[in-house]
């Protein structure tokens, strides 16, 4: 029984890492209609930015800041110089997906000669190991969970209580109408890319802390789990992404305990398939998901 409680605890860490990333991803999709397959690579680049800071002696928790900055700037530039021009040209959704994949290929292969093929790791002081009723977590891991909670509350606060948040929700729902109501949608979209880019950056650093070893190849690994969490919760819905991350994180670790660990991701994805069968628009999506093909 202890194994399952421990697995639950480990699941919480996974949830934290996935949720930060998934919320950013799903907001990019919800507000700008962009399935950004380069998201994982941006996480990886931000992770390396924090790595270089860490190598230079900066404490890894402080290095979250350069990580977030790099994520924000890179995402902003990606949109400004690649995605937005194509969207203005009227490229359809699938063309945009292919472009984002091309972008991810390019980012990964430009990083490779720079950082090399071997894995890197941060210097993280894990702190004392805490045990309680079967849960086994270090202080650093608890801190990761705390970071995730703070960021989730922050996103919630942003969306619900600020003017910017309202503008973002309006733009997501109906860009044309929002513009007609005087909302500077172009500026809102820029800000969205900065904010979600920052989330992406933090997620990249936290993922690196979680994994001990990361490399250029880690980027692609992050992406699928993030997509799964976002889709599970209802693509475009930030609260949905949080719930999706919760389900996937916990189920993954519990199934590693209950079944063989090599299938842990498969079980999580199987849940996703089940949800797709029963509720294809995702858990929290509104009716927009079921619109006619477009």
């Amino acid at each position: 029984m202890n194994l399952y409680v421990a697995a639950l605890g480990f699941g919480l860490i996974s949830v934290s890492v996935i949720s930060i990333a998934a919320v950013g991803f799903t907001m990019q999709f919800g507000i700008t209609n962009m399935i950004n397959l380069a998201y994982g690579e941006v996480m990886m680049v931000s992770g390396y930015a924090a790595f270089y800071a860490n190598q230079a002696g900066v404490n890894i928790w402080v290095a979250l800041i350069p990580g977030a900055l790099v994520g924000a700037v890179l995402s902003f530039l990606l949109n400004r110089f690649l995605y937005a021009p194509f969207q203005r040209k009227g490229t359809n959704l699938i063309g945009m997906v292919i472009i984002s994949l091309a972008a991810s290929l390019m980012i990964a292969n430009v990083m490779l000669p720079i950082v090399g093929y071997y894995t890197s790791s941060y210097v993280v002081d894990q702190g004392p190991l805490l045990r309680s009723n079967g849960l086994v977590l270090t202080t650093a891991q608890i801190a990761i969970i705390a970071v995730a909670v703070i960021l989730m509350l922050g996103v919630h606060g942003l969306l619900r209580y600020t003017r910017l948040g309202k503008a973002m929700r309006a733009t997501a729902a109906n860009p044309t109408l929002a513009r007609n109501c005087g909302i500077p949608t172009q500026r809102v979209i820029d800000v969205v890319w900065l904010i979600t880019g920052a989330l992406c950056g933090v997620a990249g650093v936290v993922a690196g802390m979680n994994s001990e070893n990361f490399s250029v190849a880690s980027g692609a690994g992050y992406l699928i789990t993030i997509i799964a969490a976002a889709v599970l919760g209802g693509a475009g819905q930030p609260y949905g992404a949080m719930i999706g991350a919760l389900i996937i994180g916990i189920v993954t670790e519990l199934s590693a305990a209950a079944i063989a660990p090599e299938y842990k991701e498969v079980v999580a994805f199987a849940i996703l398939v089940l949800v797709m069968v029963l509720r294809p628009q995702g858990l929290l999506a509104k009716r927009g998901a079921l619109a006619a093909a477009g």
Partner: protein
Amino acid sequence: MIGAALILVACGGSSTTGAGLGSGPLLVGVLAPFSGADASFGPRYLAGCYAASLSINGAGGIGGRQVSCQQFDTRGEPADAVPAANAMISGNSNLMGVVGCTSDEASTVVPILDRSHVPMFCMTGQSEFNKTNFKYFHRLVPPDSFDAYAMIGSALYGPNHPPYKNVALVFGDDIGSQTFVGPAVAALKKLGVNIAINQAIHLGAASYRTEVASMLQTHPDVILTETIGSAGTYMKEVKQQNGGKVIPFIGTSATIDPVWFKQVVDAIGLQDFLANYTAVDLKLSLQGAGYDEFVTELTAADSKFPSSNATTYKGKSPTVHLYDGIIMTALAMVAANSSDPTVYNPKIIEIANGVSGATVVSTFKDGVAALKAGKSIRYVGAAGENNFNQWNNSQQGYNLVTMDKDGNEVVIGELTQSQTQQIIDAGGNA
């Protein structure tokens, strides 16, 4: 077109000895992953090739022909490897040999190279090549199954501990790691050792906390592992969840690598690493005249090809072995006095195993001199002596090793012939 015609003639021609070495530059192809998940493999083979080419050219080349190296990226998967191999053969009529062919692509490229009569030295550990009929295939590294047997040998007969009774197998779910598990399980079962858990982990996963928790529940005495790239992540969890105590772990020969060393030491600390880590390695002495020449040329390669980082590979078994393979191929050409692979390929094994009364040489230069004096030679090179069996596989047996505080390999014991044979028989030499 002319190149193709030459190849056809070479394949169809009869074995006339001593048709001469020809003229013009010669090429060694490094057919391996240079991109994708295993992109780190290609460069270490290329470094070996550079060193060999410098050693050969410095001694006047092969009948005056200068040797150069070129990489051909297989992208780490069979479907991309086929055009790479075919493009390499079709575009280079002066191909004298190929090195590389890892388990990512060997199944598809070995037949291609063999049918084009290209002598190759392959790094794949796959069991399918244990008893192969490909005449141009040569393997200087043992199949992965042998690494697995050696690890079991270490668990049973290793120094400084009684035989372990409860073994945990922790390997990745990739091809390279997969080939250890089957033979290991078979051997352990036959020998009556309890397999506490057989865990296949997904390499590169974010964390292995639950996996480690499951493993710890089975209370193994020892962990047999490879998990390149994820070992640090896994072992860190082991230490953390086991109350700061690390379980003894035995690595494959691939773990004897500065990067692996760094990852795991970063994860669990030097003290625990030194106290608990052992590995198995091919009996690579890294000494002797052949090795000295290898290091000299590797250093020269570093200045001639600065981006190759050649000297970082001076302790790496693939680099050393492939260097030897190329030297042997070159000597075979000189000995046969022919640039026709159907003529010189059989000589490679002769030179490696040596006929009775052969003069032992350890560099290309010495080999050429001895051949000129009419002697037959045996090349004992940077990796020591080779003994090819009837299936063109050669290995020298295993040492039990660990690493010192700087990550250098230290031999702590070895397995005797009978111990090794017992385990091989138990595992079933597939």
